């Protein structure tokens, strides 16, 4: 009798669990369906497509080519020959200086490595200044945030004019003794810096707002204790403010790194990857192969390289989450 009632209870619990699970799935379904249709399926298709040759149109025209697309984007034959004949580093140098994928990878990583810390530093600096009761702080906050909501095309066109030969930026620099007077976007070194400059200028206002919110949450007592311990302003900043901002910095750096890997619009408008291939980024390379040259298979293979890159960064970031995100 006792056994029967226990079984019945178990059965009843099971029904409840099933009901709850069903409710949970019902709530999850709309989001999951959206995710599946617009993200999961395209990603899976893209993985499959990277092993095929497809010029678009009818799906039956898709041809399985195995690893050919990867061999082509990595130029394995040519890079292998260089490595065999001139050594490992010569092959590597060939890949990063002559091969489209290598150049795009190099450019994207350089852009990310410079843009992320620069944006973080500028955002913290702005937030620190505007966190105090500066006259017109609210207006300044709005001004610094404005580029983030302004049209990207308008921003890029305006900066292109500002960075032209004899333009305002070059004029100011020349007043300080600079000898450089060429359009930044027409110079293979400065073109990349032009894109970095615009990216940092555009997004620092957004991250400033996030840091401002985080600064409000730093307990006053910590500063008071630090003052009692004899810490000066710089020491307070490095030993109190920065550690307290760590979760925010962690979040901001994740967002920025992923955003930087996906950079496209600024490059497409300002330089279109030029001069030469000086600012050719991964997404621009994918776009050109897919929608200019109609090599969807090849473009998907390049997209896989980007996927692996983002995945690696994400894994590293997740492994550091406990240490940095939950201080």
């Amino acid at each position, binding site marked *: 009798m006792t056994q029967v009632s226990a079984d019945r209870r178990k059965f009843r619990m099971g029904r409840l669990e099933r009901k709850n699970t069903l409710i949970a799935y019902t709530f999850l379904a709309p989001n999951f369906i959206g995710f599946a249709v617009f993200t999961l399926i395209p990603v899976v298709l893209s993985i499959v497509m990277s092993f095929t040759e497809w*010029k*678009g*149109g*009818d799906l039956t025209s898709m041809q399985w080519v195995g690893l050919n697309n990867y061999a082509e984007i990595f130029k394995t034959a040519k890079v292998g020959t260089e490595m065999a004949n001139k050594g490992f580093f010569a092959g590597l140098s060939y890949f990063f200086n002559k091969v489209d994928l290598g150049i795009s990878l190099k450019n994207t990583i350089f852009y990310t490595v410079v843009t992320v810390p620069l944006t973080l530093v500028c955002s913290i600096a702005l937030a620190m200044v505007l966190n105090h009761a500066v006259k017109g702080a609210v207006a300044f906050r709005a001004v610094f945030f404005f580029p983030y909501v302004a049209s990207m095309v308008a921003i890029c066109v305006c900066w292109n004019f500002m960075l*032209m030969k004899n333009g305002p930026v070059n004029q100011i620099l020349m007043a300080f003794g600079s000898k450089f007077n060429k359009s*930044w976007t*027409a*110079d293979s070194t400065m073109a990349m810096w032009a894109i970095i400059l615009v990216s940092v200028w555009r997004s620092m206002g957004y991250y400033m707002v996030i840091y401002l919110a985080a600064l409000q949450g730093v307990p006053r007592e910590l500063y008071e204790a630090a003052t009692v311990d004899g810490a000066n302003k710089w020491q307070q900043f490095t030993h109190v403010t920065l550690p307290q901002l760590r979760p925010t910095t962690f979040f901001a750096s994740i967002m920025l790194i992923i955003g930087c890997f996906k950079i496209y619009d600024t490059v497409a408008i300002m330089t279109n990857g030029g001069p030469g291939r*000086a600012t050719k980024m991964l997404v621009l390379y994918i776009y050109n192969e897919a929608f200019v040259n*109609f090599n969807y298979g090849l473009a998907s293979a390049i997209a896989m390289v980007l996927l692996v890159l983002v995945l690696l960064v994400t894994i590293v970031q997740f492994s550091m989450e406990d240490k940095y995100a939950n201080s």
Partner: protein
Amino acid sequence: MKKLIALALTACMLLSMCAFAAAEEGTVITIVAWDANTTGYLTAQKEAYEASHPGVTIEYIDVSSQDYDTKVAAMLAGKDTSDIYMVKDIPALLNWYEAGYTEDLTPYMQAANYDVAGFVGMETNYAQDGQQIALPFRSDFEILFYNKDLFDAKGVEYPTNDMSWEQYKEKALAVMDDSDPSNPIYGTHYHTWLSTAVNYTVADGVNTLVDGEYSDLAYFYQMIQDLEDAGACMSYSEISAAGLHYSGAFGNGNIAMMPMGYWYVATLITNIANGTYNVKNWGLAAMPTKEGVAAGSTFGNLTGVCMNKLSDDKDAAWDYIAWLCGEEGAKVTAGAGNRPAWVSEGVAEVMSSIEGFPTDEGSKAALLPTFVAIEIPGTALSSRISSILGEEHSAIMTREISIEEGIENMNERVQELLAE
């Protein structure tokens, strides 16, 4: 009262539905084109066709000229059902064809017994694997525009139809004037495209942009750099950074010569007529040639139309294509200041008689080039070769690498691609 209002509203709804249905009765042909609102011949073609075909409406879908091929590719990949697509260049058309987006026009042509004699063979550039994937309605070639007032001011003779490139360079240097730095007069102008700068090498009918050997371009790159250094033309870096459009540049009135496609005639005439441009007296001359190449040789491109495989009304689309590319459409195109692909005595007469066209004999004679090479032959790799050449072109023109280095890169990269 409420019933009365409800009745009145229902009646209104029924009436509007009837009106909507009536409006839907006619045939609508949708055509994807670039600069549809500002291109004179598109308006003229629409008006002429609608007038001669009551009940048919032509609707243009405007796509920006700069990204036309890319955007059209995205539209076609998205199963767009527009009836007709304008074809800007052959490599892009081939990509559409390979992706299965284009309808084969051959059966329609055979059924209508369509005469192709007026195309003088140019329609073959749009034929692939035995299919006619498009038909041309315009045939533009590179020609030299010049501002007569600037030549007169300097007492320099106008460009002629048998000039050599050396003579052209001499004229550019002679007519330039940088005495007023705020308003310099430039001897010539090169737009940022590779074609307008150095593609003249193909005018000999031997060189092509897809052969993987580009040492022949060095001569033209050197000439441009010399002219830039002398201040006889604006620098590429500034033009590309400012996104300066060639039409406004020449229209501004401080550029003496500009190599450009024949399509610019229509823009020039329209903008001079409505007072937008400062330039007033202008003329046309044949492109200069290198030694050993016949005077009047140039390169050109076709502009055509293809039918979308997903068009809802293919018969209506074919009717329009047949009209547009044939004699009747050609006259309308010519009347708007453009050179139609269909050539006949009647069409030539229309071309030179339009208001605003230069009246001098030299300009009229420049309308008849002796040889027109195709700008870039359509091959499966044309698009990728164009991308490579474009990248190296920008590096050479911004002087980030030397001409020799750039050409070496072009040779190496394209040959690598061809070998694959």
